[in-house]
Structure formats: structure tokens, C-alpha cells
């Protein structure tokens, strides 16, 4: 799970959420438009490292400690992407694509690290307001994204609990033995979350 908001007074923390979001969207788009070549992978990762270094994160290592933690948090995504790409498209595109995806994810992570979710929510609501004319509910869309973010952590914990329970009962690793209780627990959580949202005034 990528780290969430990191309180601080660096310049990136102080940039308003709306313009910052646009900046990161542009960055991610730029990365996605790079070609699938060796140099592009380097450029994508280099840009991400530079962004962390320039973000004034004050980790005592020019943002690199935070950058490394972010990459480590998504190591399984990187691994799965790299292996799948290696199998289907070859070494050079696999390297470039994996670097681009990693860079895009850690870019998004930097946005989350330097912006309170409440501010993102407000900015997103404001940004989506023009679409209300065509029936879109900006508040709902913004809330859905926020709830998705917070749910990732909970689902991670549910998965860990289920694996621990299986180990405690001596069960071997099995996709079915994991998937069924995980699905049930996730659906139960969705029900509870719906009630909690309702109870807190979300209609």
C-alpha cells in the first residue's frame, strides 16, 4: 500500500490540491506517452526520482528514502508487470513499460504524500462540477475514489487475517481456500461500510 499524507511544510505540500493534481496528471500522461525503449524507462524513473528529490520531503536523504519506500510498497505490482511483459513482449519493452508503470504509480504516491485527501476530494468535486449538467454527481465520484483508497488498506488487513487463520489451522496455500473467505469478508465489509456511510450522512 502506498503511504498516505505526510504532514510537512515543504513547497509541494503548500501547492493547492487542484493545480497539483493537474500537474501530476500531466506528468503521468507524459510518462505514458514515452516509447517502449531502454532510454524511456530510464527517463521515466529518473523523472520520478527527480520529482521526489525536488518535493522537499525532508527525509534526510533528498526524498530518496521515501521514494524507495514507495517502490517497495508496490514491489508485487512491479514484479507481476515485469514478468508478464517479459513473457509477452520481450526484454526492452518489458523494462521500459515496467519503469513507466512504476514511475506513474510513485508519481501518484507523491501526490498523496503531499496532499490531504480532504483537499483532493474538494478539488476533485470542484473540477467535476461542470459535468453535473450531464447527470454526473461530483460529490459521489469524489467520495467513491476516497472510499476506494481507504478500502485498499482494510482489504489488505482482511487478506492477512485470512492467511493467518489458514496457517493457524495448518491449511496449505490454496487459491480457493483463500478466495472464498476473502470474498465473504470483503462483501461483509462493503455492507458495514455502506451502513457507516449512511450513518454519517452520505445519501
Amino acid at each position, binding site marked *: 500500500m502506498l503511504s*498516505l*499524507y505526510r*504532514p510537512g511544510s515543504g513547497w509541494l505540500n503548500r501547492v493547492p490540491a487542484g493545480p497539483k493534481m493537474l500537474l501530476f496528471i500531466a506528468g503521468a500522461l507524459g510518462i505514458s506517452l514515452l516509447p517502449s525503449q531502454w532510454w524511456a524507462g530510464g527517463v521515466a524513473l529518473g523523472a520520478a526520482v527527480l520529482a521526489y528529490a525536488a518535493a522537499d520531503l525532508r527525509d534526510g536523504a533528498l526524498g530518496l528514502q521515501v521514494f524507495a519506500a514507495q517502490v517497495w510498497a508496490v514491489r508485487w505490482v512491479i514484479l507481476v508487470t515485469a514478468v508478464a511483459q517479459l513473457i509477452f513482449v520481450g526484454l526492452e519493452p518489458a523494462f521500459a513499460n515496467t519503469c513507466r508503470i512504476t514511475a506513474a504509480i510513485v508519481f501518484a504516491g507523491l501526490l498523496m504524500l503531499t496532499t*490531504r*485527501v*480532504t483537499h483532493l476530494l474538494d478539488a476533485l468535486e470542484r473540477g467535476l462540477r461542470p459535468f453535473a449538467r450531464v447527470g454526473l454527481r461530483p460529490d459521489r465520484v469524489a467520495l467513491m475514489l*476516497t*472510499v476506494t*483508497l*481507504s478500502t485498499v*488498506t*482494510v482489504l489488505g*488487513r482482511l487478506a492477512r487475517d485470512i492467511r493467518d487463520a489458514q496457517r493457524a489451522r495448518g491449511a496449505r496455500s490454496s487459491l480457493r481456500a483463500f478466495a472464498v473467505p476473502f470474498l465473504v469478508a470483503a462483501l461483509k*465489509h462493503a455492507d*458495514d*461500510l455502506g*451502513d*457507516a*456511510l*449512511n*450513518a*454519517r*450522512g*452520505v*445519501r
Partner: protein
Amino acid sequence: MSIRLESVDVRVGETHALRDVSLELDARTVAVIGENGSGKSTFARLIGGLVPRTGGRVDVLGLDPGARSATADLRKRVALVFSNPDAQIIMPTVKEDVAFSLRADRLPSAVVATRVEDALARFGLTDLADRPSHDLSGGQKQLLALCGAFVRDPELVVADEPTAYLDARNARLITGHLLADTGHRLVLVTHDLELAQRCETAVLFADGKVASTGDPAKVVADYEAVLSC
């Protein structure tokens, strides 16, 4: 009368969860006890507007929780706290989660900030304001859930087994906040019979019906008699 039920029926799927329940509750603190599946939680969810009735009449603080027109008012005046704090936490940090409870009210940000700070201080969460909500301990999460409920200044708090997952210290802390006389009424669903006796009145549910109601000591004694059969 703060809560009134007249011949209320609730069916949840095939289950007849509440059967012909009639009750009038006006005490400041009400304990709701009974075995698992007896209808306690359905009662709590009914008065909290989360479960529709299939028959009868319900009045909570002068509102009908089943009426769509009353929903917004009900959410402002009635807060719910559940047993699983994980499911009640929406936002990634403590401060943002408390502020989320006020989002629907569209208050000025300065007012929100003041109310959130006051609520955090009241529940001893000020030092945790910027911590990720889901990294808190179970007790801290339930305190946060309570803080998120109380920041709205509700007239009625409906708590469904809020101490179920907590150790003795945290359970005591949570019940202290719930029972404190800060101008709210409380409906507390609990399996803790000692705690039930600290409330002003109690209701015993059995098989979806009210089996006993009134003085908590008497209601708990009635429950003990059932348990010993």
C-alpha cells in the same frame, strides 16, 4: 417521548427479525440486551434508519426513520456507532475522518476545523490527528468512530456493541464517553450485563419480541432467569 414503536414488524429476507414490538422510551440512557439473533441489532438499526420496518409505526425524536423526507434530519440528530471500527473509518487520517462527519452539512472550513479540534481534544485524539486512521489500535479506532459520531453533536447516539472488540481499559474508556451526560441520549446494545445496569432503563429482546423492559436490575434479572433455564 424520544423513541416510540407501535406494533412494529421487521423482516430481513426470510427472517422475522422484530415481531409486533411496542415500546416507549424516554430515559436518557437505554440498555438493550438479549441473546444473539434476538433482535437487538435490528432494533438499533431500525431507530437509526438503516433498516425499514415492514409494519407498524416508529417515531424517533419526532421523526419517522423510514421516511425519505426525514433522512437528512435523522442523520443530523441521530448518530450510530457499530462494533467494528474498521468499517466506520472512511478517511485516511484521523483528523480528516472526523471532519468527514461534517461534510454533508457544508459548513465553512473554519467552523469545521474548530469543531474537529474540539472533538479530537475531547476524545484524547489530538496527538494522533495526522496519523493514518487504519494504523490505529482497536481502542483508538473505536475512539475515532465515537469522535466522528459526536462531532455532529447528535441528540441521540445509538451504539451497537461498541466495546465488543476492545480490552477492559478501552471498553471502560468508550463506555465512559457514551454514558457521560453531555446532552445526548443513548441507546446501547450490549452483552455486558454490568454495563446494562449502569443505564437508566433497559429492554430485553427475545425471539424478535420485547421480553422485559424497565428498571435495568429487574430486566437483567429476567434475562439471567432465561439464561439459567
